[in-house]
């Protein structure tokens, strides 16, 4: 009856969100008076989950699962749920997890609520708060099915250490060829650079930059901050930047600690998509730009003057605080 949490890893290393979802699962388990079991696939350092409230880790070591495969991963999680008799499953909001969670939900006839931003408001009835209308609102959603799946919104609950320890058990799911009927042929992924999904800081730029040739300073600013780069919808539609960088209502949502918008006026769709970021900074020549109403800090000024100054100042700051 333990709460089951899927702790995601990449190349054997837990993702940051693994500790956040583990912490969330612990909060749910405390409400239900039970413990937390994690399912981890080809991860090392499984015992590190103990500090975040996991009592037991089901450790899957399987070469066929080295590359993410939604169906096979979903089936693995489903089998762990069956073994543990779990009725509550906690997952993240990563792209891979949003791929597999509906498959688990379909298989287990489970109610699945993604984009959850806080610990359950109650467990009888089971009630969670989530974002809706692309961050223009929140919904309080009741889950009435026997098995419940909660998708925790990135960077909403945080990781909380409680000094516990975890035991690790091997778990071997039974998988067949049918589980691998969609095959990964090639992965094209930027390495060594923060992604919009995981980054603490996102530096984003819009049409105010006038052309793709001017992105050098945006990338430099992102480098100094260890940030991911993003862009507004018009910039992606014009082909100045790849689609994967488009943030907003029809692009990627951003839930970073710091979001810096440069030369972005702040259309309602863009503001909705970035509203979950904790601190927002806007740099824009137009003091009437709607982004100033949504930001915490702002500089009215020309990006071509302000950004190079900001890069220099941050380099100085990093040198002093290193």
């Amino acid at each position, binding site marked *: 009856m333990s709460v089951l949490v899927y702790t995601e890893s990449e190349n054997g290393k837990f993702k940051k969100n693994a500790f956040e979802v583990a912490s969330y699962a612990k909060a749910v388990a405390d409400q239900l008076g039970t413990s937390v079991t994690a399912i981890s696939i080809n991860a090392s350092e499984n015992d590190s989950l103990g500090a975040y409230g996991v009592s037991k880790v089901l450790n899957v070591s399987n070469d066929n699962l080295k590359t993410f495969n*939604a169906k096979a991963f979903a089936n693995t999680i489903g089998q762990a749920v069956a073994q543990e008799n779990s009725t509550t499953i906690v997952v993240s909001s*990563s792209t891979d997890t*949003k*791929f597999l969670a*509906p*498959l688990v*939900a379909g298989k287990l*006839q*489970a*109610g*699945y*609520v*993604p984009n959850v931003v806080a610990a359950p408001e109650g467990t009888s009835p089971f009630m969670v708060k989530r974002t*809706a*209308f*692309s*961050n223009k*609102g*929140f919904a*309080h*959603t*009741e*889950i*009435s*099915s026997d098995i419940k799946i909660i998708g925790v919104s990135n960077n909403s609950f945080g990781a909380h250490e409680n000094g516990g320890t975890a035991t690790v058990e091997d778990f071997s799911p039974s998988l067949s060829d049918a589980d691998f*009927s*969609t*095959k*990964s*042929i090639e*992965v*094209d992924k*930027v390495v060594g*650079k923060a*992604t*919009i999904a*995981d980054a603490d800081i996102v530096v984003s730029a819009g049409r105010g930059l006038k052309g793709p040739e001017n992105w050098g300073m945006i990338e430099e600013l992102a480098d100094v901050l260890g940030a991911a780069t993003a862009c507004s919808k018009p910039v992606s539609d014009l082909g100045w930047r790849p*689609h*994967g960088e488009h943030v907003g*209502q*029809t692009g990627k949502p951003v839930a970073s*600690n*710091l979001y810096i918008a440069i030369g972005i006026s702040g259309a*309602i*769709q863009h503001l909705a998509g970035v509203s979950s970021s*904790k*601190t927002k*900074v806007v740099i824009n020549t137009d003091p009437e730009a709607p982004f*100033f*109403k*949504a930001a915490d*800090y*702002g*500089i*009215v000024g020309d990006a071509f003057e*302000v950004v190079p*100054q*900001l890069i220099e100042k941050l380099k100085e*700051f990093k040198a002093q*605080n290193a």
Partner: protein
Amino acid sequence: MKILVCISNVPDTTSKINFTDGDTKFDPNGVQFVINPNDEFGLTRAMWFKEKQGATVHVANVGGPSTEPTIRKALAIGADEAIRVNAEPTDGFFVAQQLAEVVKNGEYDLVIAGRESIDYNGGMVPGILATLLDMNFVNTCISLEVDGSNATAMREIDGGKEKISTNLPLVIGGQKGLVEESDLRIPNMRGIMMARKKALNVVEPVDAVKATQDTKFEKPAAKGAVKLVDNVNDLVNLLHNEAKAI
């Protein structure tokens, strides 16, 4: 190839969102409804399959009679036929069960749905649908080619993309990239006239499990005023000492 495009009827992206009935319902007053953008990219890709590979394209929607203008728009863009399951789309699990019935009855080879609807953001309909029908599934799909029963898809991943090989029957959760924004079609007068004559079949829902229910909505808390600074030194200091963001 027989394609079903699942479309959701959603508030236009520029809409301001309000709630009514003691914040228990979305308030549609003054809201313009459109085809969910993620679905529209898929519908436009389906038109390509129709024109280049002779595919038949049907659209399906789960909704009340008020969604018909949106369905007619999909017909005006070029879909051959439409099906409306006459039920309020209460949650993603319910919608997926209704669509599963439509897919079974229509014997579709390819089902294209949006990665998520921009209203309730459940993002679960295509995946649950694939599971209920035991079809292959690719989510966050940004390109799709079909050759016989083989399909090659590209999907967006965090920080990049992944090429995937699979087979029909297939469900995809689509998004921008399937086609470009500039490929989207505005229905012309001829399309609109023809859409009036195309079949829009209304079917009653099947019994289905309801797994979740939205009981109350709220809007985000009002934002405090922006703190304007006139130099980068002050900005860095505030970000470090006040916001603790760097």
